[in-house]
């Protein structure tokens, strides 16, 4: 599919927000899914780059992605301009499973794991009012989209150095006595592990979004697997994931 770039905004020193519109099955998008983007017509890079869908607007027929520049592919993406076109496939993967109505929910995002939770929070708002949003960043300069989330619910922010919000980690802000029923998270693998440990012993459904280097992005190559909790099975992150119940997978 060819989508038009309708906006590109620099959020932090190396994080960018890109808006796309054009023919795309917007209705089919499940929060937590991703698109797979071809870089420069595949000329310099034969593998597409997977980027999560941060927001989808079915009316305006547009979708938003947010990415961090870490290499040549994301560097190229950051240089796109309004009017350029992106060759993408998607939506891909299995997204977040929504909770029962009026559940008590906490959403925890870390760094570049924050934006994939935005569409989820938008949908959660339709289902429940008991929603806590915890966001973690390295420092104030790395913070983004905090106000955007604040419009949808109560937001707690942790930064490693305390330059914004509370000093510390997201786990410091996650009250295990708050009787949360559902936890949704996206962020570095270490943060997801810490969260799961932190919630050990409490009765909570945890859903986490995982990452792995991908080739096909559609489930055909078995490149992007993660282990089941008992390590006896593999799941394809691009097809059975990227979102898993954290009881199912070995973090």
């Amino acid at each position, binding site marked *: 599919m060819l989508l038009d770039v309708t906006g590109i905004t620099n959020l932090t020193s190396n994080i960018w927000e890109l808006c796309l519109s054009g023919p795309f099955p917007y209705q089919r998008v499940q929060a937590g899914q991703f698109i797979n983007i*071809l870089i420069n017509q*595949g000329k310099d*890079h*034969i*593998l*597409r780059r997977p980027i999560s869908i941060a927001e989808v607007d079915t009316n305006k027929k547009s979708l938003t992605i947010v990415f961090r520049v870490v290499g040549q592919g994301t560097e190229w993406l950051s240089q796109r301009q309004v009017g350029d076109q992106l060759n993408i*496939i998607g939506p891909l993967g299995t997204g977040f499973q929504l909770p029962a109505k009026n559940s008590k929910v906490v959403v925890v995002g870390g760094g570049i794991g924050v934006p994939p939770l935005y569409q989820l929070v938008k949908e959660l708002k339709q289902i429940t009012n008991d929603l806590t949003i915890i966001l973690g960043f390295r420092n104030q300069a790395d913070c983004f989209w905090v106000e955007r989330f604040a419009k949808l619910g109560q937001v707690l922010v942790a930064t490693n150095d305390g330059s914004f919000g509370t000093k510390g980690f997201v786990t410091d802000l996650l009250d295990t006595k708050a009787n949360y029923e559902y936890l949704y998270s996206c962020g570095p693998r270490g943060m997801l592990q810490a969260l799961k440990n932190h919630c050990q012993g409490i009765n909570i459904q945890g859903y986490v979004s995982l990452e*792995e*280097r*991908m*080739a*096909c*992005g*559609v*489930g*055909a*190559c*078995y*490149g*992007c*697997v*993660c*282990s089941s909790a008992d390590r006896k*099975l*593999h799941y394809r992150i691009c*097809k059975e994931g990227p979102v898993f119940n954290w009881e199912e997978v070995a973090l």
Partner: protein
Amino acid sequence: MSNPNLAVELAGLKLKNPVMPASGCFGFGREYSNYYPLSQLGAVVVKATTLEPRLGNPTPRVTEVTAGMLNAIGLANPGVEKVITQELPWLAKQDVPIIVNVAGSTEREYCRVVEEISNSGYAQAIELNVSCPNVKLGGLTFGADPKVLANLIKKVKKVSAVPLFVKLSPNVTDIQDLAIAAEAAGADGLSLINTLIGMQIDIKTRKPVLANKIGGLSGPAIKPVAVRMVYQVAQVVKIPIIGMGGIYSGIDALEFIMAGASAVMVGTANFTNPMACPKIIKEIADFMAAEGIESLEEIRGCAL
């Protein structure tokens, strides 16, 4: 010539066109059937199937390199039983010939998988994978020595009722030797090439990117080596050759056909463009129409 005939025959197997997805790059067909009807393809070649289920190697098991990628999947597959009960019945309904890629660690294992696949009745042909570089360092046990290869082929042929294609490894000193041995042992056709063995090091972590350290190099980077091997093998065998390695366009496919291949397989290109196979089929047809070529027989091996 507005309607060239793309049909080819491979050891009795009739294909409506010479383009098939390469093993391991197309799962068992389900995923890409979301993009186009599989019946457009010459055949579907499924992921390497082994006797027992295999998880494969730890991750990362894919990474990109210049004009290619490295993979160290390590023959991950659900095992022959599940392949026969859960994957092939679906694929058999897609109106496209099925070729099952078979791998193993021992002659016995190969034979048992081939026998079960052959008996299942789902496969129109079997592709014997004796060239997977990712199972262990210094592997290739069956694909590097002509005598060992010939023995395996003879045993496997006894238990197979369908044509047997042998997929050769490019990581050898003399590909012609192996091709000749495979033909003499009874192979009905040869597929080449599998991946070249490669490695990428991340200079930041100072370690190999792949958990398995080495992996198989595929994509445009290997095309010249692949074309050369097809060309060399076409000079010494009479059985049909299926060429592959870096095919992204009709032009690429035609290079292989002119080098002597009867058909081609498309691997990595599916990842870049899920519509790669239909696109390549169309480009071959366009070239034939433009150049007034009525059948691929006319140009097969014309560069020899």
